[in-house]
């Protein structure tokens, strides 16, 4: 079939928007990462790889943010995926109750992140917060914590909020993936005498791998970019224990007026996400099978 040349014109609006909103900022960030631009002045100087050198060898806060981000990402990816998958299996059949439950689980996703931050800051408040009060009511006083004020656990408290916020979104992807698995395969597994675990391991999981890949990749990227939640709930504190790369970029760019350096961290940030996502794709691809 011969494609008319005019069809290429239809690419132009998308290409234009992509160039303006993605390509240009990305190339700009790369360009400024080699400068000392303060974000305000009309002038700047090239500093070579100085910004990258500083980030990789001379900035202990940046190293800490990478560590925080990895902790946050691991907790969110593992638990959000498990929670979403477990709930998806529970509400898989299209009954009225399940449709309602799916909508209910999805509900947090439609809230604004600032609202979520406000709600959870109140839940976590050490003296007035409902979480500590419930624990006290249940006689579990020993579990009461200073959820956002203790630098050892604050990042995990944020991760729980992130999971609550986005698990419903991933649940929908898993439900779609699970519903696409042919029923025949389960019948065959049953006839062959496979246990529930064997059925999950040999049938469900391999066929769910494409959905899982999307969920895990998306969750990873989302957890690296959880700027708004962290910014609104802890501002990176206490003692930088919840500072993640995205909030640090904001601080460096807009509080320290060091756009050049912030751009170099943004580029490194992009590389880190791309690398982790690549590893995940490689790992999950090996699990995929087709029938």
């Amino acid at each position, binding site marked *: 079939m011969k494609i008319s040349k005019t069809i290429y014109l239809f690419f132009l609006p998308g290409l234009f928007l992509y160039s303006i909103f993605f390509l240009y900022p990305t190339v700009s960030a790369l360009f400024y990462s080699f400068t000392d631009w303060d974000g*305000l002045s009309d*002038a700047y100087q090239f500093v070579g790889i100085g910004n990258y050198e500083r980030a990789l060898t001379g900035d202990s806060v940046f190293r800490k943010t990478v560590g925080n981000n990895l902790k946050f990402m691991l907790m969110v990816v593992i638990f959000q995926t498990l929670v979403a998958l477990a709930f998806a299996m529970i509400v898989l059949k299209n009954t009225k109750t399940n449709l309602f439950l799916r909508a209910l689980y999805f509900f947090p996703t439609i809230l604004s992140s600032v609202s979520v931050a406000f709600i959870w800051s109140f839940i976590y408040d050490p003296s*007035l917060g409902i979480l500590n009060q419930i624990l006290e009511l249940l006689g579990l006083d020993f579990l009461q914590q200073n959820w*956002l004020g203790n630098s050892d656990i604050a990042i995990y408290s944020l991760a729980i909020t992130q999971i609550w916020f986005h698990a419903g979104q991933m649940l929908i992807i898993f439900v779609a993936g699970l519903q696409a698995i042919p029923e025949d395969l389960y019948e065959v597994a049953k006839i062959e005498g496979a246990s529930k675990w064997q059925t999950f391991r040999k049938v469900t999981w391999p066929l769910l791998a494409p959905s899982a890949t999307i969920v895990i990749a998306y969750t990873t990227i989302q957890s690296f970019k959880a700027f708004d939640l962290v910014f609104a709930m802890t*501002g990176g504190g206490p003692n930088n224990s919840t500072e993640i790369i995205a909030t640090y970029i904001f601080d460096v760019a807009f*509080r320290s007026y060091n*756009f050049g350096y912030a751009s170099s961290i943004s580029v490194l940030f992009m590389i880190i996400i791309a690398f982790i996502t690549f590893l995940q794709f490689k790992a999950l691809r090996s699990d995929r099978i087709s029938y």
Partner: protein
Amino acid sequence: MISKKSSIPALFLIPLLALAGCAGESPDSSSESESGSEDRTQISFIHWRGEDKEVFDDIIAQFEEEYPEIGVEMNIYPSEQYQATGQRMLTDGSTGDVFTSFPGAQFEAIANAGFFEDLSGEDFVGNFDESLITVGEKDGQQLALPYQLVFNMPVYNKGMFDELGLEVPKSWTEFQEMADTLLENDITPIAFPGADIGPNQFMNSMMMNNAPDEDVFQKLQNGEESLTNEWWVKTLEDFQLLEQKGYIQPDALGTSQDSAMAMVANEEAAMLATGSYHMASLLDLNPDLELDLMAPITVEESEAEYEGINTATFMLAVNSNSEKKEQAKEFIRFLSRPEIASQYANETGQHLTVNDVEYESEVLQNTAYWIDERKTRFQPRFLITNAQVEAAVLSSIENVLGGADPMEAAEEAQQIVEENLE
């Protein structure tokens, strides 16, 4: 050195903000006038104080009545957004003919970018208290005029103190005795909002006498001073003592300013470790409170040099890129008139840096003695011009309140300072 067009950063920023969802929150804009005549010049006034909108609307209406040839369009941005993007709006001169700046890092950045019009020699500068506007000076030029005067030191329940027969302590020993008495009466001495503004407010009065040298943070940024020196380690040790003796509430690092205010309003705590700007809100929560200000004196009485902290902020300035500088200056001249400043002060519950302001409210009158009769120093935190250094200083307080050894916390923070030395 390479020169660049200001449209480039703007183009870079717009998509970022749009994608981040920040652009969705449009500024609160108001203008009391329409451009009725072609000769009328419209100036833009940008700031971050949403709570002052009503009084500014009224003041702008008065200004426009008196100067019908000038219109004022006011745009108010949330303070975080203003801090992040306010200065960028000044680049082409179309916005922010009159703008405001925070002291410290933002003032330095805007000054370095050359966006401040020099106001030295303008007649209205004389309307301000000379000693309170030095923070708006740089290299011998008056670049901005601080309008508000706040006292960043604890607000205390004077009525409670009177009832318990407590005097305002004049030394660290007396402060601890006072705190012990409060504890004996089941009252938390200090409500400390460690989750948000507590560290950056309370550090000022906690260090003011430990480091009486007002250049100490400048020296720190030059590498001439260190956070591991006695002045800062002692400050951290004092914070540790507050935490260990229960002078601040448990889990203070998880306490927000709203929760801390509730503690003081409910009389569970005697002091709120923030500043004078919370007095009106506390009285809204509990009108029966009798309030005053008190900073902890962390040394012995004979060694104390300062009694409190002041901050001249909300710095009015004219955009050097503006084509309407004269009209912008006229507006600042109008704001600096004693009767207009008095209206602003009384309706917003703030002390001002303008001379001859008549304070009408009881709280403002009762605390006005801090302006002239008490020896206060400018908020040290705002003298840290590098935001990364400021963050390191504040983190060391959080670190200590989280259980770290003061010297170790100081060393950790000093490492970050050294990484950020110019």
